[in-house]
């Protein structure tokens, strides 16, 4: 309904509020932040995948020039942490269980001095048996990554057994019956590799203790309040005594959700009694960051003669690494992606996460999206080929439409999938799917959710008639806070530039679930919109009194309330209220309502229902070089149901950037790990797409408004990374007949695989 109306501020291609500082170099990022007297910290990391620490001697290191503090697992009592299982240690205490695990930290006058001193720390290790393959790790005879797993505290939803650190199941109908009734049954195994989030600003933190139990941290986290509570847990102090500030952040993509350098900076600053900065090196980023998990996916699908899916059985096995991290969440949500946006009368989908002695992993943009989507959508094309059907037609016969029941029992509304499919197919020229030798087109469908979690917003009217909006999220670059400010400006009858945004300070801004889950603009805009309406009510009361008029009779235009020819401006109202009535302020909070689902279908599921689901189709046209196996992407189309476009420019930016990030995972990006050791820890050998590797991304915005979203908007940030691996794999198969089952799709695999 709302989308049809003409608006003044929302729906417009307005420039972002934080843009000028970013093009002039004036913007301050966490890595630019410094304090007087600040020291520099460096971390000593384990060279072994699994070993007992026999002895650590820091005597020589302490005597090195410029060294102010040395911290080990024995020198400070720090509590274990972890978002689902408390299996992370700040510094290893008795054992190391992955390569790169922090063993000690040094704070020195310069980074160089700290680095030199690391070499003077003597550590004696006794190596222990390790396991690197998830399937081997599941074997009863495998070494346990955490022999004490039963004593590690975990969230109630976590079901563990030895190295298996979580298990989620979705069950519908009877899959065996479905397979018996099927015309054909297809079974495949797919694999995906670890990838890095790829943000260009390394993780960094500056910590300063302001009292024995109080600290301030300037860092580049995506989650202020999760960082605050995790640090409080580690250091055993009150969360309100930890102030987290993000001066600016150079990209996140999920790679900065969990602690980066904050805990090391805090431990070193406490020991040194000076502010300490710790910044991850590029090598540390590529060998010791929180990667997207490698996965193994088994998928079995039964169809009738016409290609209707009758049964689907699947398992996603997630290599969590040596600490569970986001593994349980990825395995759990992965089951929904295994199902895909399709009608499934019978399904049995399982997601498990497994400890190995590989590096722990995190939650990269659409954490469980690209891997199971690669499996599901590759298999859809393989089924279509076997049945002699057009892959587009096979999808048409199975996709979710308005009112359909999804695998979790949720009734689907505002389903723009068919429109995305149609428009993407037309745009890519689907009728000529194999236009020439070694050239082909492929497409992939997907769905995702708008994550929940609460947002708060404080508003105050300023004496100059502008409005200050204070929110607890980080503007990661997506434009989420410009979008939220557009919503507020629309409500207030103001210009976008009348909104002053204050964000990302845990002490002064309200609680927020954080910049994650495609929910930032959605939730912050809803909270702020509610607050704006409350503020307008208060302003109206005051204006009516001042003008001696009836509240309801007042008109609002040009940042003033009018009674006939008499007016009082917003600026006058604010000035008057500041002097006589304590100012004009308002606040509101928002959390998205849960979507209804059938609880009997899910076991231990982290996100059993999908609020404001989004739907998307990617299509690509590419060529494969006969001799070199090199893939050239000629065209790339993204069609996404975004609900409503608050700011089409930045929305397109999300889809363009996400697609290219996904193309990186499809074709070139891989953290290569051998026996727990990363083999390509530099940006020469870890290949992110450059401007030369991709074409212009063609974006189609489809708008089926969400009832809950601001002006009908849905979450948009994560989905575009989901479909590229499958769309590219399908196009490669169309181009040269090679079906690649293991990401990335390298030239070697195309030529030799």
């Amino acid at each position, binding site marked *: 309904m709302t989308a049809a109306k003409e608006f003044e501020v929302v729906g417009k291609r307005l420039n972002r509020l934080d843009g000028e500082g970013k093009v002039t170099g004036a913007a301050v990022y966490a890595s630019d932040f410094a304090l007087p007297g600040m020291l520099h910290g460096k971390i000593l990391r384990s060279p072994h995948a699994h070993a007992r620490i026999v002895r650590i001697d820091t005597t020589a290191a302490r005597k090195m020039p410029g060294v102010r503090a040395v911290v080990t697992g024995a020198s400070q009592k720090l509590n274990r942490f972890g978002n689902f299982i408390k299996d992370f240690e700040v510094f290893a205490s008795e054992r190391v269980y992955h390569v790169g695990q922090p063993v000690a930290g040094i704070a020195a006058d310069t980074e160089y001095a700290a680095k030199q001193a690391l070499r003077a720390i003597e550590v004696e290790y006794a190596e222990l048996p390790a396991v690197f393959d998830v399937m081997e790790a599941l074997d009863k005879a495998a070494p346990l990554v955490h022999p004490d797993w039963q004593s590690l505290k975990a969230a109630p939803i976590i079901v563990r057994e030895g190295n298996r650190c979580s298990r989620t199941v979705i069950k519908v109908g009877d899959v065996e019956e479905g397979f018996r009734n099927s015309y054909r049954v297809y079974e495949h195994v797919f694999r995906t590799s670890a990838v890095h989030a790829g943000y260009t600003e390394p993780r960094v933190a500056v910590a300063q203790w302001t009292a024995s139990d109080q600290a301030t941290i300037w860092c580049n986290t995506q989650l202020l309040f999760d960082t605050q509570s995790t640090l409080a847990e580690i250091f055993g102090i009150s969360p309100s005594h930890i102030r987290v500030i993000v001066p600016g952040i150079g990209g996140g993509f999920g790679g900065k959700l969990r602690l980066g350098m904050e805990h090391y900076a805090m431990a070193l600053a406490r020991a040194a009694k000076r502010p300490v900065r710790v910044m991850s090196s590029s090598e540390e980023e590529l060998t010791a960051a929180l990667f997207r998990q490698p996965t193994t996916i088994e998928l079995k699908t039964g169809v009738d003669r016409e290609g209707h899916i009758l049964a689907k059985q699947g398992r996603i096995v997630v290599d969590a690494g040596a600490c569970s991290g986001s593994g349980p969440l990825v395995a759990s949500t992965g089951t929904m992606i295994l199902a895909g946006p399709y009608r499934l009368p019978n399904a049995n989908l399982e997601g498990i996460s497994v400890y190995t002695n590989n590096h722990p992993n995190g939650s990269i943009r659409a954490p469980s999206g690209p891997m199971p989507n690669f499996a599901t959508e590759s298999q859809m094309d393989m089924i279509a080929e076997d049945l002699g059907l057009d892959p587009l037609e096979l999808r048409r016969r199975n996709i979710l439409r308005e009112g359909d029941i999804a695998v979790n029992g949720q009734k689907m509304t505002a389903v723009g999938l068919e429109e995305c499919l149609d428009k993407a197919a037309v745009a890519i020229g689907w009728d000529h799917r194999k236009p020439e030798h070694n050239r082909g087109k492929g497409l992939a469908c997907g769905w995702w959710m708008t994550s929940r979690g609460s947002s708060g917003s404080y508003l105050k009217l300023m004496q100059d008639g502008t409005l200050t909006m204070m929110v607890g999220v980080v503007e990661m670059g997506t434009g989420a806070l410009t979008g939220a400010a557009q919503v507020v400006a629309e409500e207030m009858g103001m210009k976008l530039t009348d909104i002053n945004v204050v964000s990302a300070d845990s002490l002064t801004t309200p609680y927020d679930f954080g910049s994650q889950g495609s929910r930032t603009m959605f939730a912050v805009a809803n909270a702020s919109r509610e607050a704006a309406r409350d503020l307008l009510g208060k302003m109206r009361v005051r204006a009516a009194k001042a003008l001696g008029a009836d509240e309801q009779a007042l008109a609002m235009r040009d940042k003033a309330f009018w009674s006939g020819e008499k007016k009082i401006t917003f600026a006058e109202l604010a000035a008057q209220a500041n002097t006589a009535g304590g100012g004009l302020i308002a606040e509101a909070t928002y959390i998205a309502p849960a979507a209804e689902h059938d609880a009997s279908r899910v076991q231990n599921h982290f996100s059993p229902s999908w609020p404001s689901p989004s739907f998307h189709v990617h299509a690509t046209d590419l060529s494969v070089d006969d001799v070199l196996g090199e893939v050239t992407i000629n065209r790339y189309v993204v069609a996404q149901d975004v609900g409503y476009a608050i700011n089409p420019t930045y929305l397109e930016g999300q889809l363009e950037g996400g697609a290219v990030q996904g193309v990186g995972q499809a074709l070139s990006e891989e953290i290569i790990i051998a026996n727990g050791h990363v083999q390509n820890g530099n940006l020469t050998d870890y290949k992110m797409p450059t401007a*030369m590797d991709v074409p212009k991304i063609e974006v189609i915005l489809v708008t089926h408004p969400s009832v809950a979203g601001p002006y009908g908007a849905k979450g948009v940030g994560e989905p575009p990374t989901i479909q590229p691996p499958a769309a590219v794999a399908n196009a490669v198969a169309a181009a040269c007949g090679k079906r690649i089952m293991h990401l990335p799709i390298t030239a070697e695999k195309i030529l030799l695989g």
Partner: protein
Amino acid sequence: MSTTHELNLTVNGEEWQLSVKGTETLLEVLRKHLTLTGAKSNCLEGECGVCAVLMNGRVVNSCILLAAQCEGAQITTIEGLANGETMHALQTAFLNRGAVQCGYCIPGMIMTAAGYLKENPAPTEEEIREGLCGTLCRCTGYTKIVEAVQEAAQTMGAK
């Protein structure tokens, strides 16, 4: 390690006499000695391009250039690109085209484009992509960045 050099440098039109260590890079001199933090720090091995600045009009990765090699050089950083209060055409185009997201690569990207447009004032889309390929951006997927550079080239050519 601790040998120091006297360095004469012109940065954004200002002349400096600095005492720098033999191991210090141009990026360190800009960020630490001159507190010009527009040029960013990331890979420190010349792969990502967020540290790009102009040296005597040409694009260099300041993270792998020793400061001592810059004796007498004219350096332009993102802070010196605007003409007084008037933004450079690239800065305006990047803003208006929505080519900026997190912004961390943007100083490097704009300086790279500024250097490239001096060599090739009317580039094709393909040439722009080649010209910018030394600077990584994870946010934008490059589409709007390429459009912004095209727009700026036209604006600059029209003058």
